[in-house]
């Protein structure tokens, strides 16, 4: 019993020593520390900026996809009661989220408006409207557009279903590619970051391989040597995250506040500053700390075999 207690006490004392030592190493290594922190900082700014960009582009793509709608044209011969029935039938399709009725007059107005100057030519047809009444349908998930459209087509008194098949298909396809490329870029970038940071830390530790050898000759165990390096790596990662987080939070705050003035497209809307910026910051801190520790502990291993 006694023995165990003494042992635990000793371990805690030594742990405190390791923390102190790791912190001191940050100071002792001066230029090396600055260089390491610089590498972590630059890399994480890069990762952070790209993550912010990609996640926002992804969200914009989502927004665009959500604008996709199905237009179901009602037979000219359909009576009022039948129209209501169609509506009910559409609403029973599980993937459908909203159904809105749009009379043929509304349809014509929309058409004229959407054609701009050229549309005026068609105003003369207001008396003799060749269009149909229609239902505008949105699905819960844009990708279900195709299935819903073919379901709706089967309903009685539906003349035809339009959703710009080609355009929508191309859009989805394009978005798919864009997402895949974006994901590949992010993954590539994160791995690059991991490599660059741990590589830098490795070099600074290599420069201290003689010192590690001396420690071993004086009777230090591998664990005893590794601990301060663990702490040092952690601190390097955390120190290196400060500027990236500051840059990203403030930069994003500025963009978020000014985006509507800077860019005037309706589909450009940023993810909300809160919580997005904070989540991103946490992620960056996490990446910095984990890579710092990992790079440090991995590198020191090589020199422990003395």
């Amino acid at each position, binding site marked *: 019993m006694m023995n165990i207690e003494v042992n635990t006490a*000793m*371990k805690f*004392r*030594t742990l405190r*020593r390791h923390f102190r030592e790791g912190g001191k*190493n940050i100071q*002792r*290594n001066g230029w090396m520390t600055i260089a390491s922190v610089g590498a972590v900082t630059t890399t994480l700014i890069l990762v952070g900026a790209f993550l912010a960009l990609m996640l926002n582009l992804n969200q914009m793509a989502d927004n665009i996809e959500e604008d996709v709608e199905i237009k179901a044209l009602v037979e000219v011969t359909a009576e009022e009661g039948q129209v209501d029935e169609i509506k009910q039938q559409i609403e029973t399709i599980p993937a459908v989220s909203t159904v809105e009725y749009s009379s043929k007059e509304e349809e014509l107005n929309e058409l004229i408006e959407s054609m701009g100057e050229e549309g005026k030519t068609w105003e003369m047809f207001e008396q003799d409207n060749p269009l149909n009444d229609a239902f505008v349908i949105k699905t819960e998930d844009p990708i279900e557009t195709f299935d819903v459209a073919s379901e709706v087509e089967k309903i009685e008194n539906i003349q035809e279903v339009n959703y710009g098949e080609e355009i929508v298909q191309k859009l989805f396809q394009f978005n798919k590619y864009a997402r895949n490329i974006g994901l590949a870029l992010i993954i590539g970038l994160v791995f690059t970051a991991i490599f660059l940071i741990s590589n830098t830390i490795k070099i600074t530790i290599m420069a201290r391989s003689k*010192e590690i050898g*001396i*420690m*071993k*000759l*004086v*009777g*230090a*165990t*591998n664990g*005893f040597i590794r601990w301060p390096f663990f702490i040092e790596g952690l601190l390097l990662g955390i120190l290196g995250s400060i500027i990236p987080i500051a840059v990203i939070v403030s930069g994003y705050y500025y963009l978020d506040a000014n985006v509507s003035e800077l860019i005037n497209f309706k589909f450009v809307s940023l993810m909300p500053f809160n919580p997005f910026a904070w989540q991103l910051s946490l992620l960056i801190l996490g990446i910095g700390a984990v890579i710092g520790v990992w790079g440090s502990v991995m590198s020191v291993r090589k020199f422990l*075999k*003395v």
Partner: protein
Amino acid sequence: MIDMQGVYKTYPNGVTALNGIDVKIDQGEFVYVVGPSGAGKSTFIKMIFREVKPSKGIVRVNNMSLHNLKWKRVPYLRRNIGVVYQDFKLLPKLTVFENVAFALEVIEETPKVVRKRVMEVLDLVGLKNKARFIPDELSGGEQQRVAIARAIVNHPKLVIADEPTGNLDPETSWEIMKILEEINATGTTILMATHSKEIVNTIKKRVIAIEDGMVVRDEHRGEYGYEI
């Protein structure tokens, strides 16, 4: 304490530094290792705390065969051996105090004991007032004395010193020798490589002479023995 049988060492570059060494040293002995430059004294010494592994032969220290000793156990072997390296091997970024304290920290001494014992030993080697300096701020002889302090600070059973007085003036050398003799008197084994004819011939102890990697002489109360 130390038992070497048929030990050979050939370095990777092809140099054979030890050429069949048989030596037995008992607990509490005081032994000089002498011999010309490049004879193999440092290599012989490095065998004992496993800085160098023999190419052939058996090395036993403290009744442990170093051949079977696991990597993990090596630090524990080294904690029982205080070593003064020929090139000092001080940690360049630590202060004198921290360098000496390191040998106590690895055995997880309490900070209080560390403080007291380190200052005690620094006083012994005459460097109490330089405790806060880093090695680069010391003269050659002062660095050597820090190395000596670190070697003896944790009361090891065996002190190995590789030319511990090479950078010291005669007066300081004698003081260091006095310290080693005192430590030896308390039962610690001392193994010391040296080129100092004066020391060997004045403080008479067992002398092992190495030449070309072989023991050419092993006398109790011997002489330095190389005529100039």
